[in-house]
């Protein structure tokens, strides 16, 4: 990955690889820039691939690299899927202690696509596109969940769609700043503070649930599905912001209005959720018993699309449909079948919808100041590439149960008890009478020692990290 040595006074050498185009977004973590990778063999008219570069500010004084950046690097460095954004490089500017993540650039996102239909076209998104987008979103999510990663912040602006090119119309799930590996968390997941934008937040979280699961992502997918159909957020609650972790009564009320009240009969663990217990007067006070979801999304109650949607919006997280199950749903097996390029016109001969490109603020440079210097001429520098040593994966695993699929219970409870024991150590132990032969059976090694270049960080799949748009 990037070499952080400073090239000039404040200009790190890696900057030379890019031709900066401008700023395309900003958020609490920092700024996002659009740049092009300079071609390794410059020629007139030749342009490198577009790259979105997310610059992280140092968080608070004395906190070092922000945990958001760490989470994003940690996860994206391990995963690789067509429907997940691709981290192509990480750079550091030691001079101002800033960190840059370079992603393949995606021209569109669901937020902008939905907005374009609602505000400019005043027409719904064609059924083929809706189905293809949903399928790909579930496909990416299934990959994440099967790798024990919960995204925790799915919303239309975090779901990118590739613009024209090899990957046109392909979805990329982005923004892993809140994502977690949930295999054996050291701390309860809720310790990170509240997560998920409230409109897409699952009812178990709104009710104060602490041990939540990948089902929270599926609730968000349900909300996004409905929004793709109607072009309006399904549950537009007003966020309460008075305390650090306030009770979002209005958001719950919006959900109950559409789906009816949850009941302990249908959702047994409901009774254990803090807010359900504490706030009976408010949440259980008004009763809505006319579930009207099908009227809102304009789907016949017996249609496969409606069936799938209502399974995603199932109150009980344990009964909610999983990404893997959703991919097998009848909805995806009937015409129109989902496709790789979600943005293709639904009928041959029909025109492709010209979605707008992202606005670029070309007056801002990497420092975030508005004094854009003309970029340096290319100096024949090679594109970055992974240099780490990789070893081929063993074809056969000796024993399946020891690697994947660990029960979630084991570690947490037992670990604490062993912390003390650990100190005893084993030093001084006399290994005298161990019936073992040194190097028994020869020094055969478990792994092949051949090496090959790491292919983990190729430059082929464009993608782009999403942020709140502030223009």
């Amino acid at each position, binding site marked *: 990955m990037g070499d952080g040595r400073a090239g000039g006074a404040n200009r790190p050498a890696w900057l030379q690889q890019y031709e900066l185009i401008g700023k395309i977004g900003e958020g609490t973590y920092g700024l996002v820039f659009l740049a092009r990778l300079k071609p390794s063999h410059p020629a007139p008219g030749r342009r490198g691939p577009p790259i979105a570069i997310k610059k992280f500010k140092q968080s608070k004084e004395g906190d070092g690299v922000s945990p958001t950046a760490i989470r994003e690097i940690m996860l994206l460095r391990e995963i690789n899927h067509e429907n997940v954004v691709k981290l192509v490089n990480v750079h550091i500017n030691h001079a101002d202690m800033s960190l840059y993540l370079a992603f393949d650039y995606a021209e569109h996102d669901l937020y902008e696509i939905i907005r374009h239909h609602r505000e400019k076209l005043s027409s719904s998104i064609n059924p083929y596109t809706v189905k293809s987008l949903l399928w790909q979103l579930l496909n990416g999510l299934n990959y994440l969940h099967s790798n024990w990663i919960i995204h925790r912040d799915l919303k239309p602006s975090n779901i990118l769609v590739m613009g024209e090119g090899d990957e046109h119309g392909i979805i990329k799930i982005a923004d892993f700043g809140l994502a977690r590996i949930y295999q054996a968390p050291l701390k309860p997941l809720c310790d990170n503070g509240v997560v998920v934008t409230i409109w897409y937040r699952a009812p178990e979280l709104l009710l104060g649930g602490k041990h939540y699961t990948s089902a929270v992502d599926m609730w968000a997918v349900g909300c996004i599905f409905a929004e793709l159909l109607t072009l309006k957020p399904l549950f537009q609650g007003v966020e309460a912001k008075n305390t650090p972790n306030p009770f979002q009564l209005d958001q719950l009320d919006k959900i109950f209005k559409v789906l009816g009240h949850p009941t302990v009969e249908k959702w047994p663990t409901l009774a254990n959720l803090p807010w359900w217990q504490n706030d009976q007067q408010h949440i259980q006070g008004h009763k809505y018993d006319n579930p009207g979801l099908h009227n809102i999304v304009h789907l016949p109650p017996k249609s496969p699309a409606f069936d799938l949607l209502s399974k995603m919006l199932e109150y009980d997280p344990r009964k909610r449909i999983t990404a893997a199950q959703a991919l097998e749903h009848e909805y995806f097996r009937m015409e129109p079948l989902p496709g790789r390029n979600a943005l293709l016109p639904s009928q041959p001969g029909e025109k492709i919808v010209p979605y707008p490109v992202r606005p670029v603020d070309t007056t801002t440079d990497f420092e975030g100041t508005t004094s854009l210097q003309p970029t340096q001429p290319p100096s024949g520098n090679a594109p970055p590439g992974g240099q780490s040593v*990789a070893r081929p994966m063993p074809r056969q695993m000796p024993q399946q149960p020891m690697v994947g699929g660990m029960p979630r219970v084991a570690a947490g409870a037992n670990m604490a008890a062993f912390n003390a024991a650990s100190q005893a150590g084993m030093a001084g132990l006399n290994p005298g009478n161990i019936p073992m032969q040194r190097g028994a059976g020869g*020094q055969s090694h478990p792994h092949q020692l051949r090496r090959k270049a790491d292919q983990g960080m190729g430059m082929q799949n464009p993608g782009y990290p999403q942020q709140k748009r502030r223009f």
Partner: protein
Amino acid sequence: MAANFWTSSHCKQLLDPDDVDLVPAADRERGITPEEFRLIKIHMSFHIWRLAQQVKVRQRVIATAVTYFRRVYTRKSMSDYDPRLVAPTCLYLASKVEESTVQARLLVFYIKKMCGSDDKYRFEIKDILEMEMKLLEALDYYLVVFHPYRPLLQLLQDAGITDLTQFAWGLVNDTYKMDLILIYPPYMIALACIYIASVLKDKDTTAWFEELRVDMNIVKNISMEILDFYDTYKIDPQRGIPEDKISSVMNKLPAKA
């Protein structure tokens, strides 16, 4: 992958033992022998361990920190990356990765408390934050580490010898005084610890091991390495490497800039 060791960056980065023992050129020039190189790594693993005890983080955070520390020196020299600064910074980074962040100022405070008299171990917050970035680079931004602890518990359960848990767990802890985590898949290290524990505690696990169909040669080789380590170093688990033995070695490293 986050959950599958075989597709993880950890698995892809496993090294040959010879490469792990290789003393970086800059350190060789300062007269550091392979044995001394190993000794510093043991010493600094203790340092991380003791510091972690002060700031109270869990075992897995310590294990991740020590793994980072050992990985760094397969790529960088101790002359360029002062182990006395790299060690606490590894703990700092590992605490973030394992979602139990420890503040840098807290580390600085406890380092002062632990090594008050020795100036060479003392660093400021700024030093740790700068090193954090260099560390990310040196680790090539691969941060997910797998450990033997979880497979250990599962395997002990499977073998029906959970009464050996504490003993085997202690053995696993001690493997971080060695470079095993850079060389072998974590579950193989867990198996080796179970093997040693069961032999020492007279549990017959032969049939169970046979059923696993793992390469017992590797399990036995790792076990021998662990027992060799105990035999060679005879380290006091509370004190680590004696001061007189380590200080002359540490003095070969350049003084703080």
